[in-house]
């Protein structure tokens, strides 16, 4: 009798344990599969978000380029022409008819000539034609030459490796990154030396911009709009961005993958 009841208790316990195991397995499987599905779903959402942000950024950049082109064209075709006309008038005014001394007129013509040249440089810097026609390296060389003209900075430009033409839109974005960096240095760094290095290898372009300015304390949450622009442009090119700064200056490193198939 005792044996029978012990046997019954054992059977009961086994049944309960089996039941619990089966059910626990079922619940764990449901939760596991659901979380797998959830992870895939969130991954897709994140991808969509990134794609959407990239598309927005692309549209913004295109609009910006369009505005640059318009301003550049306006400077070249309208303001430049008008200034040239003023210069021509000043040069052709007979000296006998003038009330003002001849020296001032000559100086005005010289200043206008300089303004025309400066505006022409600005127009060329804003225009994307130099990149589209001559490529990134020529564009950077032009930008460096412009900066050297100011006489404030000693600029060292190094092109290493075998420069390749990649997608002109991408080259234009890299060019705008360099322009933005140089603009930041001029605005904030109080530097005297700038070093720019474009290093090409088979799969990527490494861009380094270094200055000997006062540096800055990084605040990732309150980054300036210039740095944000550089970061966003780099992410659009699926590149890596890093910046380091101390009292001896700032160093910006950007690595951009080059797709061999799209090389022109």
């Amino acid at each position, binding site marked *: 009798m005792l044996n029978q009841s012990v046997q019954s208790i054992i059977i009961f316990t086994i049944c309960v344990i089996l039941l619990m195991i089966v059910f626990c397995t079922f619940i764990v499987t449901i*939760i596991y599969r659901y979380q797998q599905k959830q992870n895939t*779903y969130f991954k897709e959402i994140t991808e969509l978000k990134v794609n959407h942000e990239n598309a927005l950024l692309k549209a913004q950049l295109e609009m910006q380029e369009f505005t640059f082109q318009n301003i550049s064209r306006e400077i070249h075709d309208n303001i430049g022409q008008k200034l040239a006309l003023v210069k021509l008038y000043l040069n052709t005014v007979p000296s006998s008819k003038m009330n003002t001394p001849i020296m001032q007129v000559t100086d005005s013509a010289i200043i206008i000539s300089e303004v025309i040249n400066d505006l022409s440089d600005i127009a060329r810097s804003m225009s994307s034609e130099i990149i589209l026609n001559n490529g990134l390296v020529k564009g950077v060389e032009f930008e460096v030459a412009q900066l050297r003209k100011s006489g404030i900075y000693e600029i060292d430009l190094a092109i290493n490796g075998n420069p390749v033409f990649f997608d002109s839109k991408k080259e234009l974005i890299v060019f705008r990154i360099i322009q933005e960096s140089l603009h930041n240095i001029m605005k904030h760094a109080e530097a005297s030396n700038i070093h720019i290095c474009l290093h090409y290898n088979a799969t990527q372009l490494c861009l380094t911009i270094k200055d000997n300015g006062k540096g800055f304390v990084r605040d990732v949450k309150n980054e300036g709009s210039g740095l944000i622009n550089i970061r966003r442009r780099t992410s659009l090119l699926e590149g890596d961005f890093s910046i380091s700064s101390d009292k001896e200056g700032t160093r910006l490193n950007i690595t951009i993958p080059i797709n061999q198939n799209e090389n022109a």
Partner: protein
Amino acid sequence: MDKFYWYSVIAGATVIFGFLYGYFNIINKLLYRFIDSSLLLFHFSFLSLFIYKVLPNGNISKYIKILFPLFLLVILSCLYSSGLSRPPSSAFAFTNFGLVLFCCFYYLQLFEEMPTINLLKEPSFWIISGIFFCMCATIPISSIGDYLHKNTSRQLYLLVGGIGSFAYGVMHLFFIKAYLCSINQSKV
């Protein structure tokens, strides 16, 4: 979820009621049978309605809308056929089978819609898992309940009934977990 605690309250009252009847025999037998059958109908209707409310409007909830009255009809006919005797095990079996089916609908729906909820913190998931566990465990018991009652020893019958009671207890543990989740949710 707001009104779900009524199920636990009534379940608790049923246990007390059964205890009073079993040990003190202070309640009229006929009244006891009537209440027993009513409680079975309440149990099926309440839990089915809960599952139906949890599911969003769609094809799956439509199936519940169609199947619920059918099951109810079958259960009622089982109860009616047994007359004034205790509710037949077939009525319990159909109740459990119906609820298992509705729980399966819930799980199907879970994987059909966008997976945005955290299952571990979702009260309805714990409630339905509890129902599913209890009903799955008691389907075989309730299916052969009458047979066991008539043809086997009282000891075996009580033993098998014990598994059912154990499953019922576990179901209420799941409900407690669901209450805790809902308290946390309302705090957030």
